[in-house]
């Protein structure tokens, strides 16, 4: 079930909306730069925690989150840097968290796998695959109970991997969300692997969307690797949810460029060939969107983003560690 994205020339038409293109590009580029920097510093051991990079998959989070309001919520995974940032999560607090600092978004108690920013609507991640799905569904229940019935009613986007769909709570959550018509958009980032295990060793068939649809949930598979396609599909789903139409599902095919956990490429390990990545690298959305913007604008953004990223790492570097006296903080409210 190896998926190849649409070649660049065959993609859906680029929208005639420079502001949108710049917004998406800024988020794509920010995430890429952040993760490149994470990968660069990782061998120096300043981040004493596992990291799961989303390099190559950023377009999914960026496309989906562009359709959300600040008051909406996202539920992310341990591979959640892109969604955290795309939803507006605090960059300084994120890097500080990875450095184990007191200024981290979880005060050094979460680590890279448990990013959270309630102010930005990032409701947290779990290192136990799948467990965030029903929790996100509970947020959607609360959103529905508080729904104003207006176009501003809150929605939840729940990001998961292909592996998470194998957990029983996924099926249970779909049924419940559909039964109660909850405003939740499930977004499956199907990168074809759970760690090193390909879909063929885990899925009886690839008819995931068809299965989800049997709950009465509109389900769409996006194969072209195009951030605009993702954005349009998410925006349509969010509009429908705000109008009370209940949950929706997106399966977005993508590819993980780096190893499952850690900063490096892993094509030398033999479980997947580098050639699988080639078509994805060829239509890298970061590069593509850069090419859609005026070069001087790209340069200006680059300087700005690079400075932001550098400042975040400096912030993390210079922030204090928690004290061992803080050990019992927050066990109980």
């Amino acid at each position: 079930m190896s998926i190849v994205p649409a070649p660049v020339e065959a993609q859906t038409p680029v929208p005639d909306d420079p502001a949108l293109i710049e917004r998406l590009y800024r988020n794509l580029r920010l995430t890429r730069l952040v993760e490149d920097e994470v990968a660069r510093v990782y061998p120096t051991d300043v981040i004493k925690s596992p990291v799961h990079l989303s390099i190559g998959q950023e377009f999914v989070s960026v496309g989906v989150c562009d359709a959300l309001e600040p008051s909406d919520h996202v539920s992310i995974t341990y591979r959640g840097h892109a969604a955290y940032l795309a939803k507006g999560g605090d960059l300084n607090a994120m890097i500080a968290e990875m450095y184990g600092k007191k200024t981290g978004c979880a005060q050094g108690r979460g680590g890279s796998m448990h990013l959270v920013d309630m102010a930005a609507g990032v409701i947290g991640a779990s290192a136990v695959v799948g467990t965030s799905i029903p929790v996100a569904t509970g947020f959607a229940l609360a959103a529905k109970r508080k729904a104003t019935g207006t176009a501003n009613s809150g929605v939840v986007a729940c990001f998961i991997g292909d592996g998470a769909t194998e957990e029983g709570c996924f099926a249970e959550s779909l049924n419940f969300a559909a039964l109660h018509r909850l405003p939740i958009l499930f977004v499956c980032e199907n990168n074809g692997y759970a760690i090193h295990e390909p879909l063929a060793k885990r899925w009886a068939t690839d008819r995931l969307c068809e299965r989800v649809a049997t709950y009465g949930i509109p389900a769409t598979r996006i194969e072209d690797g195009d951030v605009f396609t993702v954005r349009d599909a998410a925006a349509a789903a969010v509009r429908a949810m705000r109008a009370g139409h209940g949950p929706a599902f997106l399966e977005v095919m993508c590819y993980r460029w780096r190893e499952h956990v850690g900063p490096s490429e892993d094509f030398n390990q033999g479980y997947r060939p580098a050639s699988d990545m080639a078509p994805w690298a060829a239509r890298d959305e970061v590069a593509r969107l850069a090419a859609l913007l005026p070069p001087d604008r790209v340069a200006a953004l680059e300087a700005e983003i690079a400075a932001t990223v550098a400042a975040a790492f400096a912030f993390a570097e210079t922030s204090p560690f928690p004290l061992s006296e803080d050990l019992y903080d927050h066990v109980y409210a």
Partner: protein
Amino acid sequence: MTTSTPDGRLLRYVDALREAVAQEMRRDADVFVFGLDVDDHKSIQGSTAGLLAEFGAERVFTTPLSEDAMTGVAIGAAMAGMRPIHVHIRMDFLLLCMNQLINIAAKARAMYGGSVTVPLVVRSMVGKSWGQGAQHSQGLHSMFMHVPGLKVVAPSNAHDAKGCMIAAIRDDNPVIFMEHRLLYPTEAYVPEPAYEVQPGKARVVAPGSDVTMVGISNMVLECLRARELLAEVGVSAEVIDPIWLTPLDIDTIAESARRTRRLLVADNGWTACGAGAEIVAGVLERLGPEGGVAVKRVGFAATACPPSPVLEAAFYPNPGTVASAAHALVHPAAPVWTPDPERTKLAHQVQFRGPF
């Protein structure tokens, strides 16, 4: 407020639970009740009776048979600012919810650096007796006591059922609320206005000087019955109800055991790594070796609960076996004393109605 004058009405445990929830639902629109069968005509043996009619299906609703995800839904709704009460008719079903309860509910606040709260109540009932068998009778409180971030409560009477439920609903932490099916019809004096039986305070239910008996959940009743039997042979037993198991009021128990020099814990579950082990270890750490306290745990037999009546009777501790074990602590050299089974039966009439 953990004491009361007996000016409340005599109310059944089940009605006290219901009243507590109804009062809190009136007070706070964020409180809701859900779980399998909370809205049918049996209404969890009456404990949710009337709630659907008063509060409607948005706040009182059944679920699919999906305990794992429904627990996550409760957690998410709680993190989003609501105050869910998730109901299970048997505690055994919590084994389907362990991942959500322990990996998420217990940890969310600490793991997210204090940026969220999980004000969640998980109600479940221990289904002792009448052939419920291996999978409908477990008391699993000690597994939850093991886990930081959870609170655990096991009220033994109607007064505490109401006060603990209100305290649990108002608590900003996940609370595992253990009920007992045999307690549902028992009555106590229960004040009508809302009140809290706060976490962390045990109650000396009956005074004594020879042995301290700590009862968990309905074992408080069995200890009171055992106390009567012991009194007949000149043994004076103090009975303590910890009420809240997390946070556990080890001070009150240790203080009593320091006086009586004998500590028996009668648990509503297996003993290995159980609440009794925790209480014994906690007390002895507190008292030090000079305490010289004799200790004993009694609880479920170390096997799966059998439905056959003969085996079931042997599986559970009862006033007779509790009294016998306490007697052996007080008179270690004496031959084993077993109360007259007829008197043991009579002891089954004893009820504790307050004052509290």
